[in-house]
């Protein structure tokens, strides 16, 4: 009535400022718990977004049978390794199916300074889409069209400081210091891609033939094959031609169908052991990326929720700590309450004063927590990107995050209610009698 909200907030703010040392720690506790909650939520959603946006426009991923998720992870996300390859003939069979619009072969297994090398077709740049069906764009240079040419992702370019025209050596196997460097076949860098936020950023792309070429004399192809290739190589002195470099096997095949309605039919035919295909006896597996991702979310959903619950409990314990600080302070503030009552404060206003106090502290905690969160994001984002390839953008709060913050703010109001009610009772019971 006579005491407006501004006065109320001013009073509780001044009171808090007077006790800043004692309340500071509880604000800090809330701040850190809020930062933790926001981080868990952000990492969770960004991981999903990042995974979901990595591949779009691809209808099927085909590979040797290993499990839907595993196939997706090693072929697209560069996580884990293929347990087996699929034959080049099978890939060609699938490409020739009438329902299939396009296919992209993927050959993995080589690396350049810790980055994966992927052998594929030049049409990769036409068919591979990410995010909302965005195609890959070149920051500089162009796609590969000859042997020993490579295109690199934005992250590779940034980390290694490469420019178009640079030479690079591909190694067999992963790891920064591979023992088997194909240093007799340096690649020329012909293109650098724009950043996509997908594993493509950390890939070195080259034609299948190039990859095949550097493996001449390596691995364990048939003895006869080696001999002919070796002779060929010696004879022509590193000028191998395309026809002889046809790959024997690839790691996986991305498939686009002509009509979405034919998707299940194609998938079934491939899964049923190549029924209707010439290559019989080679077991294959075709998965839909979205379906496999769904499996992934099911799998990690439990862990995600557990993390969120833990973060939630940390926030709750922060709020409980705040409540205990205010409650403890209440005993020393009986005089303050009596003074306010003498001036004409109603018990309800005394209650509101304490609720305002808890609310102000919670808001302060939220504010500092958000600050810590963004600071954390700025500092940790590059490291997280390096390790998991998940880019955490420093962007405004999502709707879910805002909702979480609002819930905490409301909880802050509720936290003030208990000390407020106690103060209410004290002011009723003790009236103006000021006890020392």
């Amino acid at each position: 009535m006579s005491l407006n909200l501004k006065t109320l907030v001013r009073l509780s703010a001044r009171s808090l400022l007077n006790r800043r040392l004692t309340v500071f720690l509880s604000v800090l506790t809330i701040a850190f718990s809020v930062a933790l909650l926001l981080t868990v939520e952000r990492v969770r959603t960004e991981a999903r977004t990042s995974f979901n946006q990595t591949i779009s426009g691809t209808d099927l991923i085909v590979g040797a049978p290993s499990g839907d998720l595993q196939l997706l992870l090693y072929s697209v996300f560069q996580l884990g390794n293929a347990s087996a390859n699929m034959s080049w003939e099978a890939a060609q069979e699938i490409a020739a199916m009438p329902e299939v619009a396009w296919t992209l072969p993927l050959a993995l297994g080589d690396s350049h300074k810790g980055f994966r090398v992927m052998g594929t077709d030049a049409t990769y740049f036409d068919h591979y889409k990410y995010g909302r069906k965005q195609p890959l764009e070149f920051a500089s240079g162009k796609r590969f069209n000859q042997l020993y040419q490579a295109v690199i992702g934005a992250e590779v370019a940034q980390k290694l400081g490469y420019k178009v025209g640079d030479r690079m050596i591909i190694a067999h196997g992963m790891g920064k210091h591979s023992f088997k460097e194909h240093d007799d076949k340096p690649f020329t860098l012909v293109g650098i891609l724009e950043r996509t936020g997908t594993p493509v950023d950390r890939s070195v792309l080259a034609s299948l033939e190039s990859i095949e070429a550097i493996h001449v004399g390596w691995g364990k192809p048939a003895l006869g094959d080696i001999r002919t290739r070796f002779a060929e190589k010696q004879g022509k002195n590193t000028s191998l031609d395309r026809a002889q470099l046809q790959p024997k096997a690839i790691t996986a095949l991305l498939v686009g169908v002509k009509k979405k309605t034919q998707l299940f039919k194609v998938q079934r035919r491939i899964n049923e052991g190549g029924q209707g295909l010439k290559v019989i006896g080679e077991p294959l597996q075709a998965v839909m990326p979205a379906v496999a991702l769904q499996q992934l979310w099911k799998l990690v959903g439990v862990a995600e929720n557990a993390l969120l619950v833990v973060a939630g409990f940390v926030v709750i314990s922060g709020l409980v700590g705040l409540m205990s600080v205010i409650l403890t302070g209440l005993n020393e503030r009986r005089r303050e309450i009596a003074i306010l009552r003498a001036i004409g404060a109603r018990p309800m206003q005394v209650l509101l004063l304490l609720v305002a106090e808890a609310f102000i502290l919670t808001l302060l905690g939220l504010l500092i927590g958000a600050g810590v969160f963004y600071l954390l994001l700025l500092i940790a984002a590059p490291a997280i990107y390096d390790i998991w390839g998940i880019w955490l953008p420093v962007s405004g709060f999502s709707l879910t995050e805002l909702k979480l913050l609002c819930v905490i703010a409301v909880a802050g109001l509720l936290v003030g209610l208990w000390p407020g009610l106690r103060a209410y009772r004290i002011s009723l019971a003790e009236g103006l009698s000021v006890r020392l």
Partner: protein
Amino acid sequence: MTGKVIIDLKQLSFAWPGQAKPALSIDAFRLNAGERLFVYGPSGCGKSTLLSLLAGVVVPQQGVVEIAGQRIEKLSAAKRDHFRADHIGLVFQQFNLLPYLNVLDNVTLACDFSHQRVTNLKQAQVSALDEAKRLLSRLLLPESLWTKSVMNLSIGQQQRVAVARALIGAPDLIIADEPTSALDRESRDQFLQLLMAETEQSGSSLVFVSHDDSLKSHFDRHLHLPTLNQAVSTVEPSAVEGANP
């Protein structure tokens, strides 16, 4: 202002919750506007109870408490709080001030809780801040202390700030509960003089409670509460010592 009745008590009886025997029972009592009343008596004679009733913190089980023409026993608790903010200035024995506000803010705080006081000041065409400054200088509080924390003040200075807060906006009634008991003789006399002068200036009535009847001479009316209070008049004062709620 003379002729207006500021306090009018009739057939009053009050017992604290959970107690069968009334702590205060007064047949009739009146205080006129501008009067300065000295209430004295030993501990347990019902002084605090009387103050709580006058301030509207509690209401009597029976009888009438009329302050400045308003029967406050009929008001709701919230309205009584509002009424207290508007019409009554309270000064306690000690620790009257909020430690987190400076001297001036402590004085003007009374206006934050009362429209009436603000209106009174507006009619006199002064701002709350100017009036607070005027009162503080009238009460001989050095200007250098005005924006300081009240923690830096001596007890005597704190009590004078409390008087300024009670007086700002010229409420009808000032109630002072043993305001000098924590002061030494010199500050006590100075305090009393200033209190008298300023209540007179603002036209407020004063109820001054003390167990020290040597202060009597400063006041125009005296009330020996044990005589008026029928609830304790038959009991030896020593028998109820310390039973004051």
